């Protein structure tokens, strides 16, 4: 697969929460080993969309999905699909850092343990070290792996969550406003990390910060009221948007 190939393809995706329709006919392509940013005002369906990709909406009883999302041409919106192996392939980082109330080591080791990725303790140590290194957290925590993950600072917690997500070798990482609870310095670190991670992973990031979208993404999709208004390269969206609404949003006239 080359880098410009489509990794995830959404086709006429409609999502309903009970009577209310949250997404309307979403057609969106996400390219391999690129950062795709999803922007738009609150409640426009960006989070709903990325939670469809790893089927996290399954936990909401009233949520109904129709249409199609494929990853490497395999259908995701399929009742018979095993969500566990899907989520092994597609990791997720949440808005608020949510490390498990366990040690830093156990936070990372949990995923590889349940998926049986390590044969023995040495392999597990290696996975933990690699994941923490990839998440640029190793140097800060290598001496206190047995301390609780909840004792780290907010930015460190979020990088711990990223390390946890990459510990099971996913192909895609979904990030749902990963910096909205962090200060600018921690945000900068996460953004640097995203830049680094895109070499190995396909990343979809939901963000409220236009500046962040410009800094980290190669491609941007603009959502409004459950519809996708415009998708293009980030450069084009921010320099020369094709849609008046996009232009109004990115220039801060609404949203």
């Amino acid at each position, binding site marked *: 697969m080359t880098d410009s190939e489509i990794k995830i393809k959404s086709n006429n995706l409609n999502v309903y929460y009970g009577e209310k329709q949250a997404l309307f006919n979403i057609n969106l392509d996400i390219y391999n080993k690129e950062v795709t940013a999803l922007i738009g005002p609150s409640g426009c369906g960006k989070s709903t969309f990325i939670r469809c990709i790893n089927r996290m909406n399954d936990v909401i009883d009233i949520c109904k999905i129709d249409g199609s999302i494929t990853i490497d041409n395999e259908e995701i919106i399929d009742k018979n699909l095993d969500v566990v192996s899907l989520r092994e392939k597609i990791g997720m980082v949440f808005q608020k850092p949510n490390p498990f109330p366990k040690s830093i080591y156990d936070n990372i080791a*949990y995923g590889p343990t349940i998926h049986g990725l390590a044969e023995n303790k040495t392999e597990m140590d290696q996975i933990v070290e690699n994941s923490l290194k990839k998440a640029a957290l190793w140097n800060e925590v290598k001496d206190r792996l047995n301390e609780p993950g909840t004792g780290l600072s907010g930015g460190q917690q979020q990088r711990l969550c990223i390390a946890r997500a990459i510990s099971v070798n996913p192909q895609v990482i979904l990030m749902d406003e990963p910096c909205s609870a962090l200060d600018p310095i921690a945000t900068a670190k996460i953004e640097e990390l995203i830049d680094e991670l895109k070499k190995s992973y396909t990343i979809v990031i939901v963000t409220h910060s236009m500046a962040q979208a410009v800094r980290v993404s190669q491609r941007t999709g603009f959502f409004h009221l459950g519809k996708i208004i415009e998708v293009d390269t980030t450069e084009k969206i921010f320099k020369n948007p094709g849609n008046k609404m996009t232009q109004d949003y990115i220039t801060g006239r609404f949203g």
Partner: protein
Amino acid sequence: MNKEQRLKKRHNAEKRFRLYGLASILLAIFFVFFLLNAIFSKGSGAFLKTTIDVEINFNADTLELSQQPTKDDIENADYYDLSIDNILNVKSVNGLDEEKSLINLFSPDYEYEIRAFLINNPSFINQTKVLKLTASDDFDQLHKGNYPRHLPEERRRISDFQLNLYDELVNEGKVDKIFNSYLFTKGDSRNPELAGIGGALVGSFFTIVITLLLSFPIAIAASIYLEEFAPKNKITDFIEININNLAAVPSIVFGLLGLGILLATFNLPRSTPLVAGITLALMTLPRIIIPCRASLKAVPPSIREGALAIGASKVQSVMHHVVPLAIPGTLSGTIIGLAQALGETAPLILIGMVAFVVDIPSIPTDPSASLPVQVYLWSEQAERGFVEKTSATIMVLLSFLITLNFIAVYLRQKFERKW
């Protein structure tokens, strides 16, 4: 009203409000103090018993024993004559009436006390030993200062002759107050000085263990299923409403249930810890399910999402992450539920635990008493000895309840997590 007046009014309102709160807390403390004082002042006497020193000569001939008796011989010997002979030697008395008066200073169990001593110390055959024999209830109370000895003789059960005997014994230093081990080792009795809560303690213990074994696993499984797995629909709503209603059902209704189903339909043995345990388990179930569900609900959804997103299955996310975090709340809820069950009286009365049971149960299907019912039974007795026994039992019951609640609070605070 100008600004200053409004300010003053507001400050006064705040002061008044604080005062109301302070007053109600002081009132509550006063009542608790009053209650504890009443129980302690009445009940503390029951932990001591009055004894009278009697020199016993374990004469082998009187016991009709050979000079080298076997253990069986000692156990089966007739101690009545030996007991009477030795007791009558305490004071010189003439005539049957006076002899009877002297013997009545002692609890009717003197014969067994003497026998028990010899069984434990067979080497005392043909030797003498001063034993502390338990005094009868009236003299026990007299010695503790609870007996109205100033009343005219015809209004007392203790005769003037007996009073004299007692006073002489006291002067000779033969009357003593020692720790009342009977209180904890004996079952119920018609004689207050011989009555103990041993049977009730064992009965309550069996009952609580059965309640715990039945209600804890069912309650945990039910709460985990309802909170984590059950779809939210009309049926689960209905179940939820009913659990809340069941927790508020008066406990006596569960007693009726036990009576109607366990005793009448399934013919389980009456007044046993088994039936009591099952009945109380039914009563305790909703009271454990509610705090369990609350503590499961208190685990933030972000933990579940984190586990699911890394690829844990639903069961894994619940068992690896949610349940361990909910354990402290679950345990403290269970302990509080058990403490309530331990103090429950009404349902036990209905399933026949008010029966007069002397023997200490050895298995849960033996008829038995339980602590709260023992309180209820003794509180109806007229003898002064039972009044202090009632309060003493309350003290024991309260100390168990306070211990359980303390453990629950400790667990909650020790393992309380901040997310």
